[in-house]
């Protein structure tokens, strides 16, 4: 059972980061070759600061500035192409260094000490998050160090319908089925209509005697003309006359005109 007693071999997280390894970067050559390894000037500054091997709160900003500027100078001497933000940081640090060193008569705002402290605070925060990330990654991780159940049965919730219906609905439904399906006798009453034949004869006759445009409604019998006062009969006459007009137009005996949608429909005979 030596397997069990054996200490964990792979609990470390050394392979987790693919950034520059701090140990390798201590080599000067590696430092300069790993130029792409830093994520911006702050990252480089933090790396340099950690080489001072003191608490970040007690770090010498002046020493840090010198290291950074030295690094930039050597990189330039090696004709390495430096990203703009590294150069901007270098210029700013050179300014900070001179401000920290030169005696001052009047206090400028912000003071160089404040700028230095700000840089220090930022480095502390970045360092804190970097350490936190390392500690987080080194934890026992689900799916790597600890495992959930390999083959859970799973929980299933089946919905079951609880149907509701009451006595009244039941009885009413039956009544409605009965009412709906009781044989119903339909009586079709005779309604006064103008047949299409009548309308066709009437419209052709009237077109024969007039040359100008005539509105469709003028083809209808006058309201004073006996039964023609009945609105249902008049609707029938209008519908039949309209169909008659279309039929005459189709046969080439009449032409139709309408100025706008739902406008008055006019009719004129076509002379051969």
């Amino acid at each position, binding site marked *: *059972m030596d397997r069990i007693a054996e200490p964990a071999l792979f609990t470390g997280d050394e392979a987790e980061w693919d950034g520059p390894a701090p140990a390798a970067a201590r080599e000067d050559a590696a430092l300069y070759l790993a130029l792409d390894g830093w994520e911006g000037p702050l990252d480089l500054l933090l790396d340099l600061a950690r080489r001072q091997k003191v608490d970040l709160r007690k770090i010498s900003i002046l020493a840090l500035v010198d290291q950074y500027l030295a690094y930039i100078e050597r990189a330039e001497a090696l004709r390495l192409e430096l990203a703009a933000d590294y150069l901007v940081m270098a210029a700013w640090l050179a300014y900070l260094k001179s401000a920290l060193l030169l005696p001052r008569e009047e206090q400028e705002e912000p003071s160089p000490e404040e700028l230095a402290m700000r840089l220090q605070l930022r480095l502390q925060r970045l360092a804190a998050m970097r350490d936190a990330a390392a500690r987080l990654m080194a934890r026992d991780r689900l799916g790597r160090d600890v495992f959930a159940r390999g083959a859970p049965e799973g*929980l299933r919730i*089946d*919905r079951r319908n609880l149907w*509701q219906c009451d006595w009244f609905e039941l009885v009413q439904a039956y*009544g409605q089925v*009965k009412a*709906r399906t009781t044989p119903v006798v339909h009586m079709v009453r005779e309604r006064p209509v103008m047949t299409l034949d009548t309308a066709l004869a009437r419209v052709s006759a009237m077109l024969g005697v007039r040359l100008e445009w005539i509105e469709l409604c003028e083809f209808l019998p006058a309201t004073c003309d006996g039964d023609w006062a009945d609105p249902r009969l008049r609707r029938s006459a209008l519908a039949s006359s309209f169909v008659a007009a279309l039929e005459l137009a189709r046969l080439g005996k009449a032409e139709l005109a309408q100025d706008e949608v739902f406008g008055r429909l006019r009719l004129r005979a076509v002379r051969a």
Partner: protein
Amino acid sequence: MMLGSGSEPDDLVRAVEATLFATAEPMTAEAISAHLGGADVRSALAELAEHYRRRGIHLVERGRRWHFETAGDLAHLLRREREEVRRLSRAATEVLAIVAYHEPVSRAEIEAIRGVQTARGTLDVLMEAGWVRVAGRREVPGRPVVYATTPEFLEHFGLGSRRDLPGIDELRAAGLLDPVEDALADALGGGTTEVDDPSVG
């Protein structure tokens, strides 16, 4: 106190327990042993099986392979049922009423009485509700299945027997055969409150 059920498990027992928990496939004792560097896992398996015997999960051996599974008396927890109250649709209510008034009745007869086709699902719903059952086949060509109501139907609707259902004359007296009322009730969406009938309340 059973042996091993309360004492601290040793490292090998813990390792076997974790291995069997994490595996996706049941494992033979040999496979577990191989996984754990050749240790003899027999007594560990016996101790674990005994430990879990009274718990919510059991360690069981099936065809020489070991795995954890839910205790048999708790298997119902894996598939829970949730009840959902649902109102019967209008069509289903009509079919139920026809079965109740005309049983035993075939599907074709139901359709003839309703005047519309009846979806297969409608009868399924009524059977799921436990109110309608298949009551055999009619001895006519095609031997159609006939349906009838169940005792649960009478119970649910508070009926002593099918004879307690109101007759056609009573329905007419209650205005329930009036087609206008029907149309109105339809238009009002069910209309259970629309009918002013003291005999029905």
